[in-house]
């Protein structure tokens, strides 16, 4: 155990680059992100190492490969009340498992099209390719989908009128 006072006193001073601030009173979306271990998760790490700031709305679930993601995971996430879902994997060609992301891409486009078709906010499901070297790109994606989800408001998917 450590002497807590000591650690809490310390102030971290870092030049604040443009950050989407979270004001406490208004509602904030909760977003679940499935990241592949080899590229996107590494990209998120790089964002961290490079101290790139992005909104704190995302909860990351690490999976070996975007090919691991069953569309059911995404639907279930929406059903249990996550306000949005992000699935991110290696760029086409970079898949650590050779072709996982190609199969994933087909599954995702089916899901994406269907949700659109039945009239669900597409904004709630997001797919992206982020490489291990793209810390900034990862942050951008998070900023983007957080903004989008804020506009969409709380997830009432499969429930009331869209």
């Amino acid at each position, binding site marked *: 155990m450590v002497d807590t006072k000591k650690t809490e006193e310390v102030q971290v001073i870092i030049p604040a680059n443009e950050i989407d601030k979270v004001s406490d009173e208004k509602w904030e979306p909760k977003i679940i992100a499935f990241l592949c271990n080899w590229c996107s998760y590494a990209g998120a790490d790089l964002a961290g190492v490079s101290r790139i700031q992005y909104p704190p709305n995302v909860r990351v679930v690490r999976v070996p490969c975007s090919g691991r993601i069953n569309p059911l995971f995404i639907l279930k996430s929406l059903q249990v009340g996550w306000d949005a879902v992000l699935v991110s994997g290696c760029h086409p060609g970079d898949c650590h498992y050779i072709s996982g992301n190609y199969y994933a891409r087909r599954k995702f486009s089916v899901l994406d099209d269907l949700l659109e078709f039945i009239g669900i906010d597409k904004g709630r499901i997001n797919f992206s390719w982020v490489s291990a*070297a793209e810390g900034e790109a990862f942050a951008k994606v998070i900023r983007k989908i957080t903004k989008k989800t804020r506009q969409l408001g709380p997830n009432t998917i499969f429930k009331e009128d869209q």
Partner: protein
Amino acid sequence: MEKIGAVLTIGGGIAGIQSALDLAESGFKVYLIEKTTGIGGVMAQLDKTFPTNDCSMCILSPKLVEAGRHQNIELLINAKILKVEGRAGNFKVKILKKALFINSEKCTGCGVCAEKCPVNSIDFYNEKLSRGKATFVKYPQSVPLVFSINQDNCIGCGVCEGVCKANAVEYSQKDEEVELNVGAVILAPGFDEFDPAPLKVYGYGKYRNVVSSIEFERILSASGPYSGMVLRPSDGDIPEKVAFLQCIGSRDIHHSKPYCSSVCCMYTAKEAVIAKEHQKQVNPTIFSMDIRAYGKDFDKYIIRAQDEYGIRYIRSRISLIEENPKTNNLILKYEAEDGSLITEEYNMVVLSVGLNPPDDAIELSKTFGFELNEFNFCKTSTFEPSKTSKPGIFVCGAFAAPKDIPESVIQASASAAHANILLHSARNSLVTKKEYPTEIDVAGKPPRIGIFVCHCGINIGGVVDVPGVVDYAETLENVEYAERNLYTCSADTQIKIVETIKEHNLNRVIVASCTPRTHEPLFQETIREAGLNPYLFEMSNIRDQCSWVHMHEPVAATEKSKDLVRMAVSKANKIEPLQRTILDMNHNVLVIGGGISGLTASVGFAEQGFMTYLVEKTAELGGFAKNIHASIEGSNVKEFLSNLIEKANNNENLKIFLEAEIDTIEGYVGNFKTKLKSKGNKENKNNTFEHGIIIVATGGEEYKPTEYLYSKDPRVVTQIDFEKMLFESEINKKVNKIVMIQCIGSRNDKNPYCSRVCCAEAIKNSIKLKDLHPEKEIIVLYRDIRTYGLKEQYYREARSKGVIFIRFDEKLPPELIKEEENLIIHVDSPNIGKLDLDLDLLVLSVGIHPPYESNEILAPMLKIPLNDDKFFLEAHVKLRPVDFATEGIFVCGLAHSPRSIDESIMQANAAVSRASTYLSKDEIETEGIVATVDISKCSGCGLCIETCAYNAITMDEEKMVVIINSALCKGCGACSSSCRGSAIDLLGFTNEEIYLVINEVK
């Protein structure tokens, strides 16, 4: 003399890393010495890699981590060689470890010291394009992730010591000397970029918008100075017109760089393409002499660069660059191919600098006592391309000659093979197998979860309310214990974790700290030492994903941390111990193909004492090389080949089947079973044997030309026929005018690839002719002369001996006209114009193509892929050039792609080394994270089989359910997510576990 089971690898670039990993996996202790403070070399600086545009860091970082944590590899960073004694099998090497001024044992790589360092100095990783600190780590993903102080920049203010919670800063630290005892040395010091500053004409260093290609590489990189934006240094504008100048410090006698640097043509094309992708306003122009796209799929890349990306190629060498002082634009003067003088203005100029020998080359050769060649690269020979002049000291990568990443990786493994062969008797003598307590059986026991939350100095604690997180964690399901540590990863905490597990008899452990990608193995190791199965571990990343990225939102960051911990807990409640399956490894090898590659590989295995079965479909060994008399370097191929065949015949570990073909192959890595069928030789029929490894060396064939009256007119021959005349018979007195035409059956629509060897072949023969009959006239009609690397010198020699080279455009190929009995070649050259050449002998430089039939039979049999050109397709173009996605099968020689004899030998040895990483083990252990199938749910639709990239899934035709071979499964989960009947699940990431995590929304 006693042989030492350890190897010293010098240089932490991709070549050094690859050879180190190979040897460490083959049962040798490896000392990997790096002169800077982190491994990764130049590849870590690259943005993308040609010809696939793979993200360099994406493919490299797993190797970095693996090398960094391999228990047989010891990294010595910031070190240099002092003294070497002894000989092959037993060297004593004295090393100087320069002080880092930060204790790497204690340093956790948290980086606060660097943040706080007031010094604004130069960042070398970003090629001086951005500023760095005195306390620094080479680059964010650096391995090992330890900081050090650059004394030259340090002002000794003492801030870093103040902020370092781990008390790792030690200004007093001194350099220390260590002595190593190794059996072999592998040289992989890499190269230095040519410094264009001295070349006044380009104004590098004078004009800010003239940058070197490696600087441009950083500019392109997402982690570079402009985070991926293409901007020009002078004013940060997007440069619309960018000129790439090739052969800066290559093919240039005046600056004593007569050789070709091999890689510039491709990396320039790549940089142009990526620049275009990053900023579509950018219009690149490339100035080059020849376009040397000689490698596998390189030409396709160049064609795409031109057609899809509109990249403009101009064949010329820039004579002068001047700057427009107002705009900082650059004015280029050059002579177009038609001779006209042109002046153009560009916004930015990139100098494609060549590869130099490393500046410590001479020093190295002195300390180790091996020879350098005239360019100060390491001296090697055609038939032993990875051996130095000194026994026991091997070389790989750009230090042997300029080469690209795959060739470096190939040679890295090749040099490792030599070490394997030299030291096989001492294998496993110095590697320590770790002893663990027997695993505690947690079956059926309710989860007792322990959570360790890390302050990471102030990295987490400074933002996230760590005590709050701990209190929260204690309230969660089945959490028996929670505590916080200053550094959970520090050595003392590991001991604490082990004690805590025992004291509270925990059976699941969670660490909330940084990223599992670097630290999971460490903690898994720790809980294993406490008797827990390493998979009973979960991690939540509250540093890289909370404190570091939400620095100004402590409340939100804390909330997020709690959520992440809660998610980890709910998964931890379900996780089960996973077992790594153990498979027996059969130590025999099957080599398919008895050419130079096949033979070299077979001998390589046999000499290590592995039983090797060599299967050759023809009646004699030697393959295509039988027709070749000498290499371009002048080495005697015939003699070498007969020695090699003799070696093969005399080795009792080597069983040769001539006139034999594969009938069936079944099984998987370590457990193959092969049945032969006769191809003439009856006794091979139904000959069956078991083996653990397969080497594919099916070679290539000479293209049989249909063009230019070949086989219709005796005066039209191929290079091989011509070589026969030159070396075996006499050139007919009447034959005085000889014309050669290049690229017959290569670089056309049917065979779009370059056959790589024909240029050298033509030049070799023309030099030979000129040596025999200086009076005879010889003209070579070519599209590009591709004498890459050190072969360039023979191109020059040929020219100096009076061989005439005339370029033609692929759209206007030379025409052969037959007037009465005279042959006349009509050629329209871009630089000389229309010519009619009468001739006595026409020599066609015919290309190489794969043995289409046998490859197409073999590929499905082995379940390995072919590329569009029907050459075998390796697992990864860049970093696994001899492996296949299917484990235990390797490729070498022409089966992979057209290549010269020395390159084939290199690749054959590489295959030996890659295979040795398996053969050196009695059993192979597979990952615990693998897919499993519940056959009661499987309806045998076979979708999973389609999606498995590793052929790990097969159909049980009896029961109509699938079987997963965990030996081949890599645990990606593509099968599981495809299975509609949820019959397949992925251990470690089961549906149930993910479901629970998903349910943790709040």
